[in-house]
């Protein structure tokens, strides 16, 4: 397809839209809802649910803190609480930009610049969250042996081997794909930002 053909194809799209006009923009009143906003709520709900789980876990650890019978376990308990809190906070911080209301009248390049900064920040925060996930897995498995009390599962001599192997195997393969996605996005946004600052 040559450039002229690209132009022809584009022009044809214009003819098609003109040939059969869309229905009148009815309902553009107070009853009209922003689709983006309703989609945002859908995105936010699981994040809030995740945050609540983190906070409940913190609460659970605090309520059973007396079960942590050695300095090492108490340290692990505090570390787990900090990790859970940080992950919850990072997740909410990374979403914050989605709710920022923007000026739609500004030039396209300015919008792109803001969008790229926000996207890059979002990916960096998510990357940090992934790393914290590795730490949380280690500390929470260790903690579970005391928090839930002695039981046949945790007393099993293969408990640590099985849980750590399964947990890290899953996390490694899950995060590898997500991580490379974030890396790619960060690279792209940085290139775009460079281009924008050059113009």
């Amino acid at each position, binding site marked *: 397809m040559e*450039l002229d053909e*690209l132009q022809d194809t584009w022009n044809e799209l214009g003819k098609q*839209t003109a040939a059969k006009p869309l229905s009148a923009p009815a309902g553009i009143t107070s009853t009209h809802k922003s689709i*983006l906003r309703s989609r945002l709520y859908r995105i936010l709900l699981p994040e809030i649910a995740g945050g609540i789980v983190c906070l409940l876990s913190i609460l659970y650890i605090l309520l059973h803190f007396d079960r942590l019978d050695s300095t090492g376990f108490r340290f692990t308990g505090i570390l787990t609480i900090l990790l859970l809190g940080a992950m919850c906070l990072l997740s909410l911080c990374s979403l914050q930009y*989605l709710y920022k209301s923007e000026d739609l009248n500004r030039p396209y390049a300015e919008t792109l610049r803001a*969008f790229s900064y926000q996207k890059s920040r979002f990916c960096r925060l998510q990357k940090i969250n992934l790393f914290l996930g590795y730490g949380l897995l280690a500390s929470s498995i260790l903690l579970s042996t005391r928090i839930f009390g002695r039981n046949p599962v945790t007393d099993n001599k293969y408990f640590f081997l099985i849980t750590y192997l399964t947990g890290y195997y899953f996390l490694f393969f899950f995060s590898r794909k997500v991580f490379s996605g974030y890396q790619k996005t960060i690279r792209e946004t940085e290139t775009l930002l460079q281009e924008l600052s050059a113009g």
Partner: protein
Amino acid sequence: MDKKEAYISAIRENQDLIIKVASLYTNTKEDRNDLVQEIRYQLWKSFDSFQQRSAIRTWMYRVAMNVAIYQLKIDKRKITAVPLEENLVALHSTDDDDYEEKWHLLKSRIHQLNLLEKGLLLLYLENRSYEEIAQITGISASNVGTRISRIKEKLRNQIKK
């Protein structure tokens, strides 16, 4: 003419613009229709801020392209790439398979460009002058010319491959 009438008339006269912007920035029919609606909604919401310092079409391009970027803000959270949907252009029931194929090819070419290039190409394909493109994008007119030449070169190289 009151606000609502002026708005409806502007939308009727420029609906091709909205559909073209939405078609270029989305990959599925559902997303495109959502974006068309969202652009209309945001145009209505911003209609008071249109200060008539530029032509209404110029202002509409700016708002529509900005809304398209905000839609990406949400959609890009899904890291997995959304494949280009076949028959995306089917705005109307059309039997024109040949056109469908050409449109798909055009989209795949444009897909290789970054968001700045995509916006510039859209306006270039719309036969907007460099001055108007500069007004919409906020890039100087001379820079627009340089960038469009680079985009053309990029597309030519893609075609050669």
